């Protein structure tokens, strides 16, 4: 019955429909989205910020402590370790996975034999469940029995404790994430490449432009919106990694592979310290909002959209 009432005014048989009815109609249509947005985004953000100024006692009562949680966060070596790790992790994964994605997309965009197979091969890591990915790579990295060490063994080299050594564990995670993400980003580049008009490339060819010049001055600039989209996703993903850490390293050894979100998970659920977890979450929130601000405030204006 309600749907009749909602759709009736826009029906052509009722010319007397009022403008305000249209407005109500529009708001009603937006309502579900608003409810979801408020319930799952805005309210949790505000609640988190509020919670970060309180301390939850074990008996459930809340005490206002002001900035005390922020002070103990500033003094928490594991927090700083996680933050620095996250920085290196982002730096290690983002540029490489984007470059690889672009190269792979250009490669499988060509007309050639085995193209479908190649596309499938590049995309497979993305569709695998996270936990399965972690287990596969756990096997690669296992000292002595793992694939890597078996390869090393073939050259007479001793086994290496890849995930158990603070100097290699982060590199191992970075390689795995690049492997997983590049194929995903490739899909966006591939879609973008197929949207490009072949006229431009033909025109460039007529003008005698080299392939590299064509790519640099025509293709790549036209792909910029995609690059931006992919880059934002990559940044967000680099702050989102938890599953793999749970399976592979638990943030160890000695926090060498702890990332911010994993630490938040640990504080919130293993230590049951929701107030401190809220404080850490605010930091994550600020980091991600900054990324969003840079995108909308600066990058969007500098990029040419078709």
């Amino acid at each position, binding site marked *: 019955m309600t749907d009749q009432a909602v759709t009736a005014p826009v029906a052509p048989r009722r010319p007397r429909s009022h403008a305000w009815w249209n407005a109500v109609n529009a708001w009603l249509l937006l309502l579900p989205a608003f409810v979801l947005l408020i319930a799952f985004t805005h309210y949790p953000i505000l609640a988190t910020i509020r919670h970060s100024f309180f301390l939850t006692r074990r008996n459930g009562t809340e005490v206002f402590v002001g900035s005390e949680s922020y002070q103990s966060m500033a003094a928490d070596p594991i927090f700083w370790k996680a933050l620095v790790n996250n920085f290196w992790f982002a730096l290690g994964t983002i540029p490489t996975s984007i470059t690889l994605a672009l190269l792979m997309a250009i490669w499988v965009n060509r007309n050639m034999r085995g193209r479908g197979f190649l596309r499938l091969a590049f995309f497979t890591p993305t569709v695998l469940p996270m936990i399965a990915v972690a287990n596969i790579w756990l096997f690669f990295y296992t000292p002595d029995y793992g694939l890597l060490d078996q390869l090393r063994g073939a050259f*007479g080299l001793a086994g290496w404790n890849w995930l*158990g050594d603070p100097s290699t564990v982060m590199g191992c995670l970075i390689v795995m994430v690049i492997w997983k993400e590049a194929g995903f980003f490739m899909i966006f580049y591939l879609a973008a490449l197929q949207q490009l008009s072949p006229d431009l490339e033909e025109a460039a060819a007529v003008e005698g432009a080299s392939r590299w010049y064509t790519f640099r001055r025509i293709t790549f600039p036209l792909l910029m919106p995609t690059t931006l989209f992919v880059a934002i996703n990559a940044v967000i993903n680099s702050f989102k990694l938890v599953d793999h850490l749970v399976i592979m390293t*638990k943030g160890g*050894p*000695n926090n*060498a592979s702890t990332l911010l979100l994993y630490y938040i998970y*640990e504080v919130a659920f*293993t*230590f*049951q310290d929701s107030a401190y977890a809220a404080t850490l979450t605010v930091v994550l929130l600020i980091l991600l909002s900054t990324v969003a601000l840079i995108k909308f405030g600066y990058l969007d204006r500098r990029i040419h959209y078709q």
Partner: protein
Amino acid sequence: MRFFGRTMLAAAALAALSLNARPAAAVDLTMYYPVAVGGPVTKIIDDMVARFEKENADIKVTAVYAGNYTDTMTKAMTAMKGGQPPQLSVLLSTDVFTLMDENAIVPMDGLVADKAWFKEFYPAFMANGQIDGKTWSIPFQRSTIVLYWNKDAFKEAGLDPEKAPATWDEMVEMGKKLVKKDASGNTTRWGVEIPTTGYGYWMLQALAIENGQKLMNEAGNEVYLTAPKTIGALDYWTDLSRKHAVMPTGSIDWATLRTDFLEGKTAMMWHTTGNLTAVKDGAKFNFGVAMLPAKERRGSPTGGGSFYVFKNASPEQQKAAVKLIQWMTAPERAAEWSIKTGYVAVSPAAYKTPTMEAYTKGFPAATVARDQLEHAVPELSVHENGRIYKFVNDAVQAAVTGTQKPSEALAAAQQQADRVLRAYK
């Protein structure tokens, strides 16, 4: 529309039928349990639970495997905060302070008719759960750390295969003889491995006890990580790899160490007795089980999981939970559980059952962990246990990977622990 209506009707009828099919006074219980050792543990639990249900038709038990000890505790606490806690769970015996602080559990005293039941268990296992004159947990999958050694490797290295190292120095000497290298100088067999991930604090506690140092006080609000003998314990541990080269450098994984031992990659390992049956089933060589070697004294912390009953459960559920616990820990079942896993049977009566007597006669290694109880000390158990464990585990890992000197790593852990424990003094 009509079809939909009919389906709904049918579903409702089915639901009503299945409800009616249940015995009138059915009690539903959900139990979380962890697995920290090898072997088909989930199958053993499922089988025991099924038999319990058969004998007690009015009680229905859902046993949920919830990961390792930390994961299980996380799941139980999160479920409780979400308003749907399990009615009983197997959790680390040392989680008792945290569970009490969270107001999550009830003591058993009011739930059993005859308190003589508490006296049936080994006192060393009851010690963790008895606080302020009340009994908060009942031991179930309890353990001590033991030394497993590969007798074939000992023989090959020219050592007496029937004699495990009895002291720290002996373990180093024997370890040196047991290390085997290939033509290009790479080590193919290590002397000994002590796991550093997962339960690093537990292994450090063993070494500290042997060095004559306790790690915590009884009130659970102080830890002694910077005591010279604790530092000495971690020094010895790191020296095994860095100075004596009898143990690999870097961290050694709790979960894969058993495989290392079974594959002959290490001639000795320190591990929970809970792995005994998995080792027995998997070893293609002769092996022995010994008490941990001594420095100033012999020693191991007790370890493993106990049963807890949750506060939110209804009185009927609590009563049913205790019934299940009594059934699971009765001497015959404790013996069966010990034989199938390697965990120490929780009561002396279990060792007097005919099955257990026959088993230990043919396989004396099964009694080592129990005999070690007389040297055992309660496992590290303090307020904010999860946090303190992390600090100690981090320190152990920092030391064995060479990131920090043992004294520095432990000083950092002590400082962080003091900050967290301040609230409980």
